């Protein structure tokens, strides 16, 4: 570590301790709460410091996050899957030892234990092939289970959702033009929306149809299709920006309100 690095490190330590002391001794917060708020603020700033450039504080926060996450999910996996879902179903006494509610004993659940051990055989130098059996089971059941669901919800129901009436609440031209409005729930907006869905789906499909050359009216529809796709990607990008800014707002609110107390 060079001299500047040592000075920065000393400055960070002094700031940390000062913040801890001030947060813990002034106001309602205890010293423990003061430490936790200061630590949260330090980790937030450490992660954000990556925007300037890569540095040891960012690395520390990143490694801490990865380590804590791995430990958290491993613990959750043990307590919720093995203890929560499995043990009460194979042994009353073991379930009681883990303070689990009594479940219906079903020795069929010994099979997942066996498959679990087979999965771990991947670590064995000569028994690696055994792990393929539970993997095949997992992939097979997942594919089978999802196939039916996706076919129904993401294929048939989605196709059905594009069968929309192009003319909504039609009671003649007089009625239509007499009650013309741009209300979001009015017939005009509904009709335009339904036309966009109908035309957008057809043109989008044409863009992905490569068995015919994209020239003439087919080419025009294909170009409209790519515009529809671009608008969709644009909407996704806009929403993503909104999501990321929301997260920034959340962190800045924490720093400005909970840590620095500049906001009420």
């Amino acid at each position, binding site marked *: 570590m060079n001299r500047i690095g040592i000075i920065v490190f000393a400055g960070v330590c002094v700031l940390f301790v000062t913040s801890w002391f001030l947060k813990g001794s002034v106001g309602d917060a205890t010293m423990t709460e003061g430490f936790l708020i200061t630590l949260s603020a330090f980790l937030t700033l450490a992660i954000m410091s990556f*925007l*300037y450039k890569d540095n040891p504080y960012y690395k520390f926060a990143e490694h801490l996050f990865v380590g804590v996450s791995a430990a*958290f*999910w491993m613990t*959750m*996996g043990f307590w*919720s*899957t093995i203890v*929560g*879902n499995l043990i*009460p179903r194979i042994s009353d006494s073991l379930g009681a030892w883990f303070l689990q*509610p009594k*479940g219906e004993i079903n020795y069929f659940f010994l099979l997942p234990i066996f498959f679990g051990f087979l999965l771990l055989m991947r670590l064995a130098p000569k028994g690696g092939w055994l792990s393929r059996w539970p993997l095949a089971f997992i992939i097979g059941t997942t594919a089978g*289970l*999802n196939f039916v*669901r*996706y076919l*129904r*919800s*993401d294929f048939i*129901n*989605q196709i*059905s*959702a594009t069968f929309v009436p192009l003319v909504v609440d039609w009671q003649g031209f007089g009625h239509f033009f007499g009650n013309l409005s741009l209300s*979001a*729930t009015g017939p005009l907006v509904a009709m335009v929306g339904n036309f966009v869905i109908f035309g957008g789906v057809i043109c989008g499909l044409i863009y992905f149809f490569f068995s015919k050359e994209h020239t003439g009216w087919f080419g025009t529809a294909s170009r409209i299709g790519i515009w529809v796709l671009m608008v*969709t990607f644009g*909407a*996704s990008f806009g*929403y*993503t*920006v*909104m*999501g990321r*800014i*929301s*997260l*920034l*707002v*959340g*962190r*800045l*609110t924490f720093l*400005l309100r909970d840590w620095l107390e*500049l*906001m009420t």
Partner: protein
Amino acid sequence: MAVAIILGVLGIGLLWLFIGALKGREVDRRVIFVFILVAVAAPLLVNITFKFEPTPIVQAVFDEFESLPEGSTVLFSYDFDPAMAPEVQPMANVLTRHALERGHKIIFMCLFATGEGQFNVTDREVIQPEFPDRVNGVDWVNIGYKAGNEGVLNVIVTDFKKMFPTDVNGVPYDSIKIFDKIKSCKDLDLIVSIGGGRPGIKEWVLFVGDPGNVPIATGVAAVVAPQLYPYYPKQLIGLLGGVKGAAEYESHFKKVYPKYADMATPAIFMMGPQTIAHIVIMAFIVIGNLIFFLGRRKEGEEA
């Protein structure tokens, strides 16, 4: 006034960048970060808010809560973690408040292990202070988290007890009053999935909504909202997309229920910085394109 000052300062900065870029000076990415920081932090400090009207897709969720008869059973699934909380927690809070205000009974659960902690936030900020008379087990119950992702949904669509033999406090299923008439998800009047990851709303639609014919409403993080719009209105009755959707809902809820005029509205509060930040981002996109096309024309003239 505050908006004008902030936009004025940012505008002058952007103009300076534009002129500098025209002279051939490269804009460092860190300058853009500083602009975004100012655009977000300044409105937070001066508390800029805007008015919102609900869009039909948000209004549909509100109307569903209103149309359900008092005493209906609604399941809330907290399928999110602290990382998504700034966007999604305001939705969870306002939807829970609305459901309890209408006298509905609520079953809370989560497909994310971290969802239990997020439910505690709602409990602390909404249920305990605003509805202290509502009894755990009778008016609402938290059955917590179960590992298994869509496997959990595949079971509870036909049998709750099989997957949740107790609530989160270890109270047996059979002695929880709210479950007297609820044996599976098919007996529910409405499911509200709040989240933005996997497992989440898509799994609820695929494994419960469509096969069980149960109405599903949702509040989601903005990142996944565009992927879920195709499910509206047939497979989802309504959707709160990102903090904007939450702000629309909060605004409409306050309008319909004036007694909540002073309630916390974090989503409306967050839309101030959102709006200013979006203006800055759009300005950067316009400036970047202008510089690109002007530079290309200049190159063409030189050639």
